[in-house]
């Protein structure tokens, strides 16, 4: 076991974990933050997407030591930032969810996309969101929500 320190959703956080433990399980089992979901364990589905230094990464494929000293954000803290708030608002307003299991990860990816491409077209959305699976097939509403979040952010910025 080893000690690790990182900034999680704005708060300094220390954990004790076996080296190599994926951040997904540190978040869910050690810290009790279950908003980050397990879907495949192999970075294939995106359900566990979190932000590492503002970049979308798959927590199931991120060993805890790679988080050492870094700034992390999970769905539980997404609304604390402007873009994340707009994404969550658009997701709720657009009733994107069906079963909902993949949706926190979808929102994390969408926020990372909008931080980089403030006004994505459908092709940019498809490129930015292709790593996030939705078994319920909510993709049409995911696209619509991202456009809405982008529009809301553009309005706000005026």
């Amino acid at each position, binding site marked *: 076991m080893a000690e690790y320190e990182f900034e999680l959703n704005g708060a300094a956080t220390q954990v004790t974990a076996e080296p190599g433990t994926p951040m997904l399980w540190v978040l869910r089992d050690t810290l009790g933050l279950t908003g980050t979901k397990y*879907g495949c364990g192999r970075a294939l589905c995106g359900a566990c997407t979190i932000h590492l230094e503002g970049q979308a990464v798959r927590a199931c494929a991120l060993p805890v030591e790679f988080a050492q000293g870094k700034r992390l954000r999970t769905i539980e803290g997404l609304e604390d930032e402007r873009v994340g708030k707009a994404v969550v608002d658009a997701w709720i307003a657009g009733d994107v969810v069906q079963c909902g299991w993949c949706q926190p990860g979808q929102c994390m990816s969408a926020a990372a996309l909008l931080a980089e491409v403030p006004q994505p077209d459908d092709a940019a959305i498809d490129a930015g969101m292709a790593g996030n699976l939705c078994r319920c097939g909510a993709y049409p509403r995911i696209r619509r929500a991202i456009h809405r979040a982008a529009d809301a952010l553009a309005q706000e910025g005026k």
Partner: protein
Amino acid sequence: MSGVENLSRRGFLKGSLLAGGGLILGVSWGARRAQAQDAEPEAPAVFQPNAFLRIAPSGEITLLAKHDEMGQGIWTGLAIVVAEGLRVDPATIRVLPAPADPAFANNAFGVQATGGSTSTWSSYEQMRMAGATARVALVTAAATQWGVDAADCEATDGKVRHAASDRVLGYGELAQAAGDVQIAERVELRERAQFERIGKPTPRQDSAVKVRGQALFSLDQRVEGMLTALVARPPTFGGKLARFDAAEAKAIPGVKAVVEVPSGVAVIGDGYWSAFRGRAALELEWTPGEGGDAPLDSDALRAHFEGLSQRPGNVARDDGDVVAALSAAERTLEAVYEVPYQAHAPMEPLSCLVELRADGGAKLTTGTQFLGIDHPAVVGRLGVTPEQVEFQNSYLGGGFGRRANPASDFVLEALEVALAAKDLGAPIKTVWTREDDLQGGWYRPLFVNRIVAGIQDGAISAWHQRIVGQSIARGTAFEGAMIKDGVDGTSVEGAADMPHGIPNLKVELHSPVLRVPVQWWRSVGHSNTAFAKESMLDELAEALGQDPYALRMQLLEEHPRLQRVLRVAAEAAGWDTEPAEGMGRGISVHESFKGFAAHVVEATLEDGVPRIRRVVVAIDCGLVINPDQVEAQLQGAAIFALSATLGQGITLKDGRVEQSNFHDYPLVRIHEAPAVEVHIVESEEPMGGIGEVGVPGVASAVCSALRAAGAPRIRRLPIGTQLQG
């Protein structure tokens, strides 16, 4: 059988239509206190007019949902229907999962279960009445308190008003008094034209908690001191454990115990990761088990099934004389259509948390569609009374049928793990990895269909279909009800009842018995039969030189609901217009689960890769409760079906499942997902299903669109690389 008839039979409701008035229903809810078991002590001032509703003095309204929320929006739908009778905003109703209790039985099945696209239509009258009877009691309580005539009081937005004296009391303020009111025997319900809540687009009650990651799914449930178990199961179906060595597994930090269970070997750790590493460190030896000497192989199974399709099977339908008609036909078409095993692959893998109790009972926290089956199964295994087993259900991270397991597989296995590791004295959550999920069986069966059709005088004169595939009912508690004269109705649904007026029609079934566990998968038998039927109709249209839309309209002359959705979809898609260069269109129409859906698909082919550009779907499901969620279900169903059409399939080689995760069991991703336009047909017809109704018609429409774009006819799913090079 309609929901009302079922309800009536079950003694819940006695209904009658009074001339000139609304629908009047008599109710006999019994006690005003909920019959459901409840872990929480009953607060005396909480008004509990029936098993479903509670109104607290604070005014908070709680609905115990008799159907499980797995994405289909049913909790919102139930709240809307209750809200109509209760005269409140559905958003003010808090919805919680019901406990395991016969009071929450599905009216279509007689047991507590969510599936078969029954939730909305089967509970509609019951939920209307649950809300309306509660409202009447609240109004009565207010009128009594004020000493006025109840007829002069009006209930709106959670308040009762007496306009003449300008007095108002909230439902919460009336909760205690309403508890003393005899619940009305007969309550007048609104006519459809008067609805204020039903039929309006209504936001989901679970959007915010799910988006924010606050909603508790089974895998998210945690209790103090909980441990996590993963089970190593046999690599082949029916395999048995020969021996195992746990020494290395036990050396993994965090591993607490390794125990043998009936399904394999469980490694119990302080969290997922230790259990996962521990399981990987197990040394395991398996034997193939009974009948396992000849390893299963999908290609061999397909050849075997194809052979069976050339021999007579059990007869599911026999109209006219199909043999004579085929021999007299001017022309015959013969084709074999095949679909593979399919996994449900809900995004949330399976899990079940078990807390054993000192009295021999247990609390199980899971996500199940099948409380009415799982609860007695656990009671039976423990040998305790029903009251000693408590179930806490959760939001279901997708179900698609997998969480309605006839053998209660993931629930009973978790119980076995807890029993085997009882000495640890800890609650244990057994969890499945994605690999466990995809390789763990309980698939939609592999099916082979052979259809021989005859053409005479420019019309289809004969249709002879043989279906070969495992029965999902055989060996389950449902065998007696589902299998008649050797025919599992779910294997032939959508084929044996095809309504196309073909005079000579025969449908036969072979149900080979194999070690692969099979189960209902979103749209069940229709996922196979609609593909075969609609594909053959398009092949016949081509042979007849007829337009596929026109041919269907003509064959379905006596089926206005099918004709109507077909017309709506065709018009919305611009069926009579010329598609863009390289684009093909395909069309289908199919009835399933009392719902009627038509699809038009537009597709192109790029270097052998199908690109689905647009899906237009029309549905008639009768009265609609929440059009926004009907749209969502039809969009989702189309994309779910596309995954199974384009790339997904479970195959066996040397007895093992070849797929293991989403890299080789590909779900459609966002860049592959077309726009899906949903048209809901305004309908006065009986209510029907929604969630599964949008699946069956997609596959053939895709294949027909590709055919129209110049590709060969696809007769075996998934399309995969069949059109490449």
